[in-house]
Every structure is written in structure tokens, then in C-alpha cells.
């Protein structure tokens, strides 16, 4: 069953794994994949992102219908996992980083995090 707007059906295969609903879930995901696996998602999303943003901006965040909401979460995951490839890291994390799993995520007021 389609979970994304039909215009973005080519991204359907990423939904289960990457349409994540919180910063914490997205941060955890990043640290449980290989750079090569991340790159498949990145390479598919990067050329579509401009269209995704323009499409989503037809709606207000709080009024996104379910399929658009799923697309929004896919875009949020892209925004929060692009940096290892953008910055040409050799892994999903960088040497000497403070351990990612010591971060505690508290509540935020933004409508969707």
C-alpha cells in the first residue's frame, strides 16, 4: 500500500526504515547503519529534496495529511543524517566524537520534532 504521495512513489522503498518521527530515533538510526547503507538513502533523496520541500510547503505543518506527513518525516531524516556524507566522513561518526549514546533527548515544543 502506498504511504507517500504518488509523485514520490520512487521513495516508497525508504519509508519503513527512514521515515522516523523523532530526533532521537533519527540519531539512533544514523549510528546503527554503515556509511554505504546511508549513502543509498542520501543519493536517492538529495536530487528529490527540492521538489519535496516545494510540495510540502503547499501545506502548513500542522495540516499535513498522512501521506504528506510521512514524506515530511522522510525529509527530516535526510536533514539529520546527510552530514556524514556531506562532510566526507569515513564513517557515520567521526574520530574523537563524544559518545553518541550518552545524549539524552528531552521534550521540545516544536509541533513535530
Amino acid at each position, binding site marked *: 500500500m502506498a504511504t507517500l504521495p504518488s509523485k514520490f512513489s520512487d521513495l516508497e522503498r525508504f519509508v519503513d526504515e527512514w521515515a522516523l518521527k523523532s530526533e532521537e530515533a533519527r540519531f539512533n538510526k544514523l549510528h546503527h547503519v554503515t556509511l554505504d547503507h546511508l549513502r543509498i538513502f542520501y543519493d536517492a533523496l538529495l536530487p528529490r*529534496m527540492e521538489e519535496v*520541500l*516545494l510540495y510540502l510547503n503547499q501545506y502548513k505543518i500542522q495540516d499535513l495529511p498522512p501521506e504528506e506527513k510521512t514524506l515530511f518525516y522522510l525529509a527530516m531524516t535526510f536533514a539529520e543524517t546527510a552530514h556524514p556524507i556531506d562532510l566526507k566522513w569515513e564513517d557515520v561518526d*567521526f574520530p*574523537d566524537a*563524544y559518545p553518541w549514546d550518552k545524549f539524552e533527548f528531552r521534550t521540545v515544543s516544536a509541533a513535530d520534532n
Partner: protein
Amino acid sequence: MNNDSITVFKGDTSRLKNVIPIQERVEPNFYQQEVARIFKKAWLIVGSAEDLVEIGAYKVVDVPPLKASLVVVRSDDGKIRVFHNVCRHRGDKLVHDEHGCKKSFTCRFHAWTYSNSGALTGVTDSTQFLGLDKDKMGLVEVNSEVWENIVFVNFDKKPRQTLKEWLGPIYDQYTGFSANRIKIADHRVVLNTNWNLAVNAFCEGYHNLYIHKNTVPDYQGGKTNPKRHRAYLEVGDHFARYSAHGNPNHKATPAEGLLYKHSKPMFPAFTHFNMEDLPPGVNPSRFAQWAFDIMHVVPNFVIGPQANTHSIMFFWPIDHNKTDIRVMRFGFKSDRPSDRIAQAHSITRGREVLREDLATMETNYQGVASGGIPYLFLSEQEQLIQNHYRAADDLLRDAGSQ
């Protein structure tokens, strides 16, 4: 050719020292003095009023150096009040969840009930309490004031200064800087380090050329300022601040360029800011290639104003060798999905930079605590750190002479 950029220095630097004996400052006895003479006397941040918009909204806040739990609540009359989170009957913890929204709080032990203004409104089996005067048995209030959506408390029963007096000239310089912003990230980490060293790590920009090369290699300085000197640096009685020089030739990464194109420039891209909208305290020298400011508020609070975002950081000592660090990030209010997605990218970039900062703090503490060096030796670019220890020593001495 000497192309070092010149820092504009402001404020009284006559009592700053660039040599700071340090080992004794991270020892347990010294920490006990800091608790008694600094944390029990100073105005302390306990969080953002932006979490407490609705009537009845509350947060439970732990204040580790004072071993206190507080309830910060927006009362029915709209005022934010702060109470000890302790039932007046026999002293059990009153509110156990982290946050919520309520008209009243009921103690789980014997079901005494208090309004969100702190008044004792219900005592079970009350005829058995001889001499009960409910008017005198409200929750114990802690002095609090709200400044620019930031909630401060003072545990001194009679604070020697109001918050306005404590903050001095900066009190009126930030009007509205946090208006129309919402909290978009809230992170906590607990580190095995001394709180002074943790605060210090966020009070200088000297390190950014070296430890932030993985995450934001070219965000500051640029060709005209290769050593990334601060554009502006000011010290005051209970504050010190600097402005950072954004790199006009910063090269956006692919995702950053795309996402900010459909929103506004945010960390780590600093271009095309409209300075006219900024209150006078933000980018105080109106430096043209401005990136962001860092302001340390004595003792343990750091604000990072930027044009389209800001962050607040506070550092609670749990003990002389353990520190609870809170980092909250705020973005401009918007209901456009592309703004929220761009803000998410900025949060992530800032969070990764933070992980580089945090990586130094435990080994820094170990080195200092070992006695391996006799003192810190500080640069002019590190005057905020010099001012931190000057202010701490003033507080330790003043409180001691009372």
C-alpha cells in the same frame, strides 16, 4: 603581511588574570565553598519560559548543587512561580512527573493538595491537625524572575541584588531577542568533569580552528581573519560576551545549501542577516560579517544569540567532578514544513559540534585534577574565562565577608 584581525575589547579588564592556579579549584573542599557562596547566592537559570506558555503548565527542575527539586509553574494568574517540590506536611516530593499542565498538585503520601499558585487548598482529615492554618502552609516559594523568556531563581532568602541589578547593563539590551522563537531541541549529557572547565569550554573561540574541523571546517574567520580572532569582546561584572566572525566564503555542503535555500540562513551559514531587527545587546558592535554571539552569565549560564536561532546552555555541578549539561536550541516560529526541516539540519550540525566540545572536557578535568600543571595560562582571546574566575573569586570573597 600581518593580516590578523583586531579584536575590539570593551570593559574593565584591570582585575583579570591570565594565570589561574587551577588544581585546588577542582577539589571537593573548594566545591563546597562554591555551593555555599556562589550557588546559594547567585541568580541561576532554571529553564525557558517558552516551555510554560499555558496556564498551569509546569516543569520539575533539579538543581543538583543545592540537592533541590523545584516546580516551575505558570499559575492561574499568568505569573510564573517557582516552589520547592516538597509537600508541607512531612516533606515528601510533591510532583513526580517531569512536566505537565495542572490546576493543582496532590501529594501521593497523604493527599494534601496545592493550587498552581502554591496555596494549600486541601488537607485530608483536617480536624485531626491541631492549630492548622492553611494560609501559612502553602508551598515554599523560591525567589524567581523571568528575563527574556528565561526563568531565573535565587535561593538566598533575601537576595542582595534583584535580577536587574545582577545582570546590570545587559538587562535592557536583549529586549525581544527570543520573541517568536520555539524550542526545537533539548539535550542533556552528564560528564565526569568540573563545572568550571565545562563552562570555560564554551567561553572562547580559540579552539574552533582545531577541534571543529570535522563538523564545521570553514564557518568562522575566512581570508581576512585566518586565526579567527573574536570581532568583539566585552567583560562586565556578572557577564562577558563575544561576537564571532562568520566566514563570508563558507562553502555550504550539498544538503545545507539546498535546505537553507528554502528557509533562512542558520548555523553554520552566516549570511544576509538583517541587523536592524536585532536588539542592541545582540552583535553589540554591529560587526558586518557577524556569525553569532556567546554570552557567559555568571556563574553557569551561556547564551548563544544568532540571527535566526539561539541556544541556551547551563551547567549544573553534581559534585566537584561531575557536571550535568543542558543545551536548548530555539528556532523562529513557522508553520512551513521547509523551515522546520532546515531547522532540523541546523540542530544536527550544532549537536555534532557540541560532541566535539564535549570530547575535551573529561580529559581536561583529569589533567587538571592530577596536578600535572601548576596553572591555566590564558590568551587575550580567552578573556571570558579570565572573567569567569575573577567573578567567582569576587563572589567567594564577598559572601565570605558577610
